[in-house]
């Protein structure tokens, strides 16, 4: 099993939140052990689950390892707040975090859920927001940060295509309401605050229907 070094290639990460993970190298094989703590919610294949009307469990399979590790550290230090996750991140030291991040990052991404029943007009609006944005409200297209196909760009901008609709929607609403603010420079927050709840829903269901891998 290959080792995945988690480096701070993205300069931005070092600049805020006192996030100091620089040298911890993750071992996917050891990470598989750690993941036993996580499968109750995130599932054995890392697919997570869309839970209609409840708190969805995000897909972790294929997530960028540096982004992944940053989230765990953020939850640990309280810059990202989530009651469900807190007891589990508290079981992890820096090495375990790096290992489990390495493990999930090399799992094959699974399909997003929660977008199957969306109507055509909603999907069309969602696609517009994701690929072209709506400059009349200064909503920059998601792909200008989240990369081609919204499959992620570097270590800072995670892939959001093929994530569950319920999770995407919850995160955007959390940014809009100010309950998630662990993004660098308020980059995500300043977009989310300009979005209506309808637009948040539209882009979430459209993204859930897209593929997380470029194949």
């Amino acid at each position: 099993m290959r080792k995945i070094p988690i480096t701070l290639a993205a300069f931005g990460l070092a600049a805020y939140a006192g996030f100091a993970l620089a040298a911890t190298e993750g071992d996917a094989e050891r990470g598989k052990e750690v993941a036993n703590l996580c499968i109750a919610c995130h599932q054995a294949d890392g697919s997570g689950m869309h839970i209609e009307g409840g708190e969805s469990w995000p897909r972790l399979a294929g997530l960028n390892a540096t982004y992944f590790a940053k989230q765990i550290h953020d939850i640990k230090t309280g810059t990202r707040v989530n009651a469900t996750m807190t007891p589990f991140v508290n079981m992890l030291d820096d090495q375990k975090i790096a290992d489990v991040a390495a493990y999930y990052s090399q799992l094959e991404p699974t399909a997003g859920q929660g977008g199957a029943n969306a109507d055509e007009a909603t999907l069309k609006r969602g696609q517009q927001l994701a690929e072209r944005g709506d400059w009349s409200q200064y909503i920059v297209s998601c792909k200008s940060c989240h990369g081609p196909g919204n499959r992620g760009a570097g270590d800072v901008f995670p892939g959001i295509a093929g994530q569950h609709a319920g999770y995407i929607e919850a995160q955007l609403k959390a940014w809009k309401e100010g309950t998630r603010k662990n993004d660098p420079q308020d980059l995500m927050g300043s977009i989310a605050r300009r979005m209506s709840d309808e637009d948040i829903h539209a882009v979430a269901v459209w993204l859930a229907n897209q593929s997380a891998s470029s194949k």
Partner: protein
Amino acid sequence: MMRKLLTVALSGTFAFSANLAANEDTTQAYIDQLTSMGFPAPKESQLVHIPPTMADLEEADIHPELKKVIRKGYDLFTNTQQLRGENVFNNMNCSSCHLGEGRMPFSAPIWPAAVTLPGYRGKNGHVNNLEERIAGCFTYSMNGKPLEYGSDNMLALSAYHQWLATGVEMYPKQPIYGRGFPAPERPAELSYANGEKLYEENCAVCHQEDGSGLRVDGHTVFPAPWGDMSNNWGAGIVRLFTAAGFIKNNMPLGQPNSLSDQEAWDIAFYMDSQERPQDPRYTGDVKETLEQFGPTFHKHSMYGQVREHDGKVLADHDNTGEKPFLKPDTIRSRNFD
């Protein structure tokens, strides 16, 4: 007062709806949105035009063949990298600098060129038409080789520009609201060190500390503000006031007008004091080139200047980046004497 302004100066949007009252409301909402983002409201004398979107194109009552051409122009404008190696030799798309697909005010919206050209340009000292204006951005901003005049791609790209100007009169007498990259007032002192620090805090997360930007799967996500993959020394954005105007009004992405005037100028000074491919008008000697193009252009840039902190003479090289030539043969002067 605002109402009066709108009925006088509003254009374009009329083409998409017969309902005047609704249009006034639309325009007011458009202006309110911009002012809420920190942009100034239009002055009474200014022309406000809301360019149509790609969704409007679907509805528009024009020939389906023309729609196809405009769509192709849009595609070239937003994914100019499809011409990489032929006409484009850096990581830019046209939309890398002209935000909102060329429609955003204060981000050099492109439609004004369609209604003000043919016209005289100081940069090359003769009368240019729309195709030549587009060729200019290819030559300098894309560090490239312009599309052939009259070619299919040139037709498509110019059709997109012209369609965005739908409904605006030719040679409008009023100044155009949000044209170009309006620069904030230049502060008394500019600081390279402060610019560097601010760049690292506000910009490097996307454009990288070394200015190389980020590409993923062969697509540009974050363009390169300097270096071989950036625009060359002849591009408008190397002028400090243009860069300061661009930054103040458009960056960090999604947060226009969040930097102070001093901050925008300091970052512009830092960014425009880095190396990039040679100006295609280079004579073989940086001093001579500066003498020739200083008065019309480089007096606003750092071209040929000594960088204070390390004594480096900027642009004293013959590096053309990935482009295998210096000057495209389409750069020529015209004269009707």
